[in-house]
């Protein structure tokens, strides 16, 4: 297969799938779940076909430098496809989403956008991809037209999204204006030569950072997240907080690592400050939450902060750890959100008090929730622990020990509120104490979806070598030899709290 | 026979423990079986120690029947056992008194199995101290003996037993803290706990600094740490306050052992450890020791005289009598190597043995009458002699031994102590002699209040009628009385062994 096709194979197949769905959907009035199954199996098929035929050999640029075809892009694409497939499963369990075929179409569209985001190698491509991703998500977030909350969520998301997008576009255009090129590698080469003054670069950087910060919900551009997650359909919120965030980080890594050389521009330090803010704000605000969706929203802000530590490190290990973290986070958070969704449907509430007696009503769901939450809290033998250790390791390696300490302290705050939820699940009881008489039914699709995700969380937490190997390979392809394997980064001299005496 | 000779000491030492463990398999309802089992098994160590006595060669210097087993190699402590004339006497005393105490306990009906087991454990604990030639092993047995004694008092004692047992335990443990720390110091310094080696190396260490202080200061502190631990056990005034409580509250057999053997542990500690390890300090502080001993003699006698509780009276008499042991030791410390010192020491060691006999006997006799009357208040008795003539006779006999009547054992040993100490510590000895006067006073007071004077009618008739001492009880007293008389009339069989040991040691 020609590289040209290979490089956008998933996107093409997604398009085909979307068309198939678009054509067939009207014939199935009244038997909606079929659209869901088509989407699910279609996405799995795409995943398999891409794995068989679309693996990159060496990093290449295609479409005149618009698309970069490397392991980095490929891995992220597979991640998005997997996330979308899982989300399609959960859509089917939702009484409204399952009835509306366009939800699946929108899901496919946004997945395609994300795939493009991961492989964009040019400012123009980048912006187009971001918008392709965002617009379907705006719609999905506001999908329940009859619900005020959902509409509000959709509108809020749209409003802030458009605003930050505009700011970023301004930054991108400035970049083009100063550099005269939109190609990321070319930009990188230009900045490395030091032709453009630092002040200007920092300004541009800040503008672009606004847009990306919004996408990955980094403070101070995080405030939309709780409201949107809370209002949006839970399955959508899950997708938003995982795949969409991963896509944002893919762009962040790509753009910053290729276009902005760290020895010219001290962006890691800026990001370190942002990471501190994000982690702290996210965790502290998660503490008082009693609504699980809002709690997960704040926790997902906090996780963006942890992930940023890896970005700040800007070493190969840092990038690999970010990718690993994103994969684990996708597995875990999708599981968490969808447990909340299932329970919200059964219990009629997302308040934590509604979870009283859960472990007696449904021991398996309680256990799944335990695994997901402990993984979020960073406890072994679940993926969250390993991911956190990698990110912290990268931070320490790059000399950002202080930042790692911030992360460490924050994860303790996190542990508190995650465990607190488990208290409701395992300890408190329903009034009357006859929970066994009110078992919670679990639909087949949810059972499959959660089973896969939880298994994934455990797998990533125990046998992590293959997954880390993939992440590492992706990381290597991304920075294309700019950073030698696992050495101290050039940023070490910027460190405030350096490792003394490391001779 | 070879096996017996090679392992004689460990057999004596551990046989009671094995017997106690064997007791676990006996049914706890069969009281008779349990009692006789305990009694007969406790006779085995006695027979073995008689065999030991026969085969012991008093003329041979050093320790005999030595045994050495690996114990705690990591800190260089070995299970090193051995006897010389000094410890041999004490071993004999212990193995003799234990069967008698068990025999005396046949009247116990509550939890007999546990009681007998504790007694047998106690015997091992006491024997271990006398047999140990390793400082750590010495300490191990020193402390471990506390446990059975504690439970004997706290479980089978009388009304105020909780307080008394705890006081006994905490006093002794607290007292041994200094000992423990000093032992650790020695162990750290020399990497060995073997006594024979420590004797040489610790004494060879004379100058230089240790722990930031001069060696002599450290030695002085360690000396006092040892002394306090042993002084509490002896007990020397003013560390004696646990003793009246413990003795009074303990069951009869417990008191017998407590007075008969446990107090000797302290005195033995002085002789085995303090004098050889700290000759210089002992000489320097001998005056203080003599002062304390004299105080014990005098105050012990006074206090004893003031008691209205028969058992407390006997208990304080122990303070008084043990004072002579310490006085002898103090004299020996001051004038080490002189003939006078040796005489004093001979007296002190013999006094240990004698007091063991007479105090055990006295406590038993108090127990005998207490079992019948359930009172120990001297004012409740009176004129009992006609009711119980045999008991009365035995009581007077034992009391006279305690008083130091010539012809009985107490006289010999106290005379030797006073004779030896007089040239060395004249003033203290003179005061002690005055104390001896009060010894007579309180003993006569005791006899008078119990046996003579107006008869308390309560004991003469009806349900409270006092019964005569029975055969088993006489059996308990008989060996004691025989020995008391024997030593009083012909002491050389034991003094010979003691004297030769003293000649070699000091």
């Amino acid at each position, binding site marked *: 297969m020609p590289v040209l096709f290979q490089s956008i194979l998933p996107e093409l197949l997604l398009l085909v799938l979307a068309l198939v769905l678009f054509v067939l959907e009207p014939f199935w009035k009244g038997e909606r779940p079929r659209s869901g199954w088509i989407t699910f199996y279609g996405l799995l098929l795409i995943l398999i076909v891409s794995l068989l035929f679309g693996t990159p050999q060496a990093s290449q640029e295609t479409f005149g430098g618009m698309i970069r075809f490397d392991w980095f892009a490929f891995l992220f694409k597979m991640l998005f496809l997997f996330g979308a497939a899982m989300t399609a499963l959960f859509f089917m369990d939702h009484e409204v989403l399952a009835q509306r075929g366009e939800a699946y179409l929108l899901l496919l569209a946004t997945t395609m956008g994300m795939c493009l985001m991961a492989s964009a190698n040019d400012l123009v491509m980048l912006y187009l991809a971001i918008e392709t991703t965002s617009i379907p998500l705006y719609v999905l977030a506001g999908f329940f037209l009859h619900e005020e909350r959902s509409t509000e969520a959709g509108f809020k998301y749209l409003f802030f999204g458009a605003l930050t997008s505009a700011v970023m576009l301004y930054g991108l255009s400035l970049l083009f204006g100063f550099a005269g090129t939109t190609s990321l590698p070319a930009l990188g080469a230009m900045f490395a030569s030091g032709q453009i003054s630092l002040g200007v670069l920092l300004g541009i950087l800040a503008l672009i950072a606004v847009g990306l910060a919004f996408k990955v919900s980094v403070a101070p551009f995080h405030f939309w997240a709780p409201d949107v997650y809370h209002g949006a359909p839970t399955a959508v919120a899950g997708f938003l907080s995982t795949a969409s965030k991963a896509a944002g980080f893919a762009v962040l890594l790509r753009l910053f690592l290729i276009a902005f050389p760290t020895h010219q521009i001290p962006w890691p330090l800026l990001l370190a400050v942002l990471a501190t803010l994000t982690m702290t704000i996210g965790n502290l605000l998660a503490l008082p939450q009693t609504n699980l969706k809002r709690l997960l929203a704040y926790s997902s802000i906090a996780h963006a902060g942890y992930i940023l530590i890896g970005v700040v490190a800007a070493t190969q290990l840092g990038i690999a750890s970010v990718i690993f973290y994103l994969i684990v986070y996708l597995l875990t958070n999708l599981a968490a959100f969808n447990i909340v969704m299932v329970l919200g449907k059964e219990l009629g509430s997302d308040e934590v008090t509604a979870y009283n007696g859960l472990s007696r009503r449904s021991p398996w769901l309680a256990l799944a929730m335990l695994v997901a939450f402990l993984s979020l809290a960073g406890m072994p033998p679940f993926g969250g622990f390993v991911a956190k250790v990698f990110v912290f390791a990268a931070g320490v390696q790059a000399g950002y020990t202080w930042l790692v300490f911030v992360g460490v302290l924050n994860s303790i705050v996190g542990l508190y509120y995650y465990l607190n939820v488990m208290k409701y699940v395992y300890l408190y009881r329903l009034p009357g104490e006859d929970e066994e008489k009110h078992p919670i039914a679990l639909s087949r699709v949810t059972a499959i979806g959660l089973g896969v995700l939880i298994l994934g969380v455990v797998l990533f937490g125990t046998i992590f070598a293959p997954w880390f190997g993939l992440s590492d390979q992706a990381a290597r392809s991304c920075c294309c030899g700019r950073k030698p394997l696992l050495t101290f980064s050039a940023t070490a001299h910027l460190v405030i709290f350096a490792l003394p005496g490391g001779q | 026979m070879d096996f017996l000779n090679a392992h004689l000491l460990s057999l004596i030492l551990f046989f009671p423990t094995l017997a106690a463990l064997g007791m676990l398999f006996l049914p706890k309802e069969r009281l008779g079986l349990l009692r006789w089992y305990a009694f007969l098994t406790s006779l085995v160590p006695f027979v073995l120690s008689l065999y030991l006595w026969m085969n012991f060669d008093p003329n041979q210097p050093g320790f005999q029947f030595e045994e050495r087993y690996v114990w705690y190699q990591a800190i260089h402590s070995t299970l090193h056992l051995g006897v010389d004339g000094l410890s041999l006497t004490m071993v004999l005393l212990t193995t003799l008194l234990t069967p008698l105490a068990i025999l005396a306990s046949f009247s116990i009906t509550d939890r007999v199995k546990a009681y007998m087991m504790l007694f047998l454990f106690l015997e091992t604990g006491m024997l271990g101290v006398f047999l140990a030639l390793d400082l750590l092993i010495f*300490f191990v047995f020193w402390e471990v003996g506390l446990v059975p004694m504690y439970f004997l008092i706290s479980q089978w004692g009388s009304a105020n037993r909780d307080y008394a047992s705890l006081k006994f335990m905490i006093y002794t443990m607290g007292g041994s803290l200094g000992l423990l720390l000093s032992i650790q110091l020695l162990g750290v310094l020399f990497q060995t706990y073997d006594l024979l080696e420590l004797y040489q190396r610790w004494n060879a260490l004379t100058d230089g600094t240790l722990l930031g202080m001069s060696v002599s200061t450290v030695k002085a502190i360690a000396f006092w740490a040892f002394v306090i631990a042993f002084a509490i056990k002896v007990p020397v005034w003013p560390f004696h306050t646990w003793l009246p409580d413990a003795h009074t509250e303990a069951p009869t057999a417990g008191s017998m052992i407590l007075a008969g053997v446990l107090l000797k542990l302290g005195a033995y500690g002085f002789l085995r450890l303090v004098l050889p390890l700290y000759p210089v300090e002992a000489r320097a502080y001998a005056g203080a020791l003599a002062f304390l001993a004299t105080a014990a003699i005098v105050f012990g006698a006074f206090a004893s005289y003031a008691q209205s509780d028969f058992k407390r009276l006997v208990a304080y008499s122990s303070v008084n009598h043990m004072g002579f042991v310490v006085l002898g030791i103090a004299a020996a410390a001051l004038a080490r190597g002189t003939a006078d010192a040796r005489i004093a020491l001979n007296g002190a060691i013999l006094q240990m043995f004698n007091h063991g006999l007479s105090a055990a006997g006295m406590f038993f006799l108090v127990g005998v009458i207490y079992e019948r009357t359930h009172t120990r208040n001297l004012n409740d008795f009176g004129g009992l002699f006609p009711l119980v003539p045999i008991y009365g006779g035995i009581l007077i006999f034992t009391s006279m031994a305690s008083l130091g009547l010539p012809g009985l054992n107490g006289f010999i040993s106290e005379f030797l102590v006073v004779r030896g100490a007089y040239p060395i510590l004249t003033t203290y000895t003179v005061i002690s002699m005055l104390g001896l006067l009060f010894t007579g006073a309180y003993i006569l007071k005791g006899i008078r209040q119990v046996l003579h004077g107006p008869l308390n009618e309560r004991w003469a008739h009806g349900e409270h009628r006092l019964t005569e001492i029975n055969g088993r009880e006489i059996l308990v007293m008989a060996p004691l009385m025989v020995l008391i008389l024997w030593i009083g009339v012909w002491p050389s069989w034991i003094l010979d062994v003691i004297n030769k040991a003293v000649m070699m040691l000091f």
Partner: protein
Amino acid sequence: MQFPFLSVIVFTPLVAALIILMLPAHRKNLVRSVALVAATFDLILSAWVYLTYLTQGLEGYHFVEQYAWLPALGITLHFGVDGMSTPLILLTGVVMFTGVLISWGEERNGVSAGIQDRPREFFAFLFILASGVFGVFASLDLFMLFFFYEIAVFPMYLLIVIWGWVVTREYAAMKLTLYLFVGSVISLVGALAMVWVAYQNSGVLSFDLLQLEKAGFSPEFQRLWFLPVFLGFAVLGGIWPFHNWSPDGHVAAPTAVSMFHAGVLMKLGAFAALRVGIMLLPEGAKYWSWLILGLATVNVVYGAFIAFVQTDFKYVIGFSSVSHMGLVMMGFATLSREGLLGAGLQMFSHGVMTALFFAVVGMVYDRAHTRHIPDLGGFAKVMPYAAIGFIIGGLVSMGMPGFSGFIAEFPIFMGVWKTQWLIAVIAAISIVVTASYIMIIVRRVFFGEMPHELEHHHIGDITPLDKLAIVTLCLLMVGLGLFPGLMAPMVQRGVDYILHLLGGA
């Protein structure tokens, strides 16, 4: 290839936990039987490992298994035990076994002993914890050590919060978890720093402890990182002033968990502090040993006094654990042959002793429904085994010769003598204080008259399984006390290795 003893030991509880989770919830006795079989199996294996190490007089690391886990970062699944950790493996096996026995319990005559509510989840969580504990003791890889360390910590929260004492469980469980987590993550940062610096120095990226020992960290680095790493772990060892979680946690936890907690988990902290803190950063240890010694002294003395004034039976034991773990830390801080030897033995001795204590406290509480000491009494008559067990434990606790406590404490004090004699004198006070409170408790709770209120509770004797547990624990304590040669030479060889790392100090 030899039989992979250690991995089987480590993963057996995990597998058992999974099997137990699969069982139907209402078949409580089936769940318990599976748990008991797994625990017995692990006990036999750990005893085998112990005896092999002992009888063959081995030295250094044995039963080594190494599997590549993440070669890119030099992480391996590396198991191996030496003289220090072998006794702890045995200890964990014993506590796991007895913990299961104790949790079996019974439900009759108004006595609801053991775990009657959701035993399936209970044993599953308990076994996950056990797996983590085994893992830490056996790990020779820094990453895996943390991995198992955290696995050992988090089930604690659930175990306490779900099955704990109603009054304080939520507070205590959260406090405990957060304290331990804070400590461990701080240590983790230090550990990561070590790995990178070692990589920078040697060019070999490895989390292997044996490699890191040779890393040759500069003295400045060691001094900077020793305290965070050591104290981070020592939090779990209950070092003052970070001991606060421990009594609360002990008291709130259900019996078997308290046994595990005080018996094994605190050793986990101490062991990791030794393994990572002292053995990897010997220079730092030498530099800061005075501070650790000081803190440990406060532990020992202060813990004993606080225990003395408690009126809650379980709090007394809780604080006594703080006091005794102080002795372990003290032994570490001496960095001397004797001190470390004693600390190693004390870890085992205290583990067995405190497991026994908590087991007995649980038995009393199940029957009396109160732990207020003045309201208790006379239990020796109804449950003589428990009373004798407690007394033996008490004797161990006060360092009575002839019992394992003496064997352990004596060398510790010798070590302290070598280092700072004044501390030895001060710490010795705790012996008398301990003796007093133990004796007072024995008297109040087990002897004397049983209060009238209690007689209505139909207090009966403990079950045969409970007796088996008590006898097992007692035999270990007495056996070790009488024959120190059963363990001391092994620990001694472990200590020699540590001293070698310390530069033959």
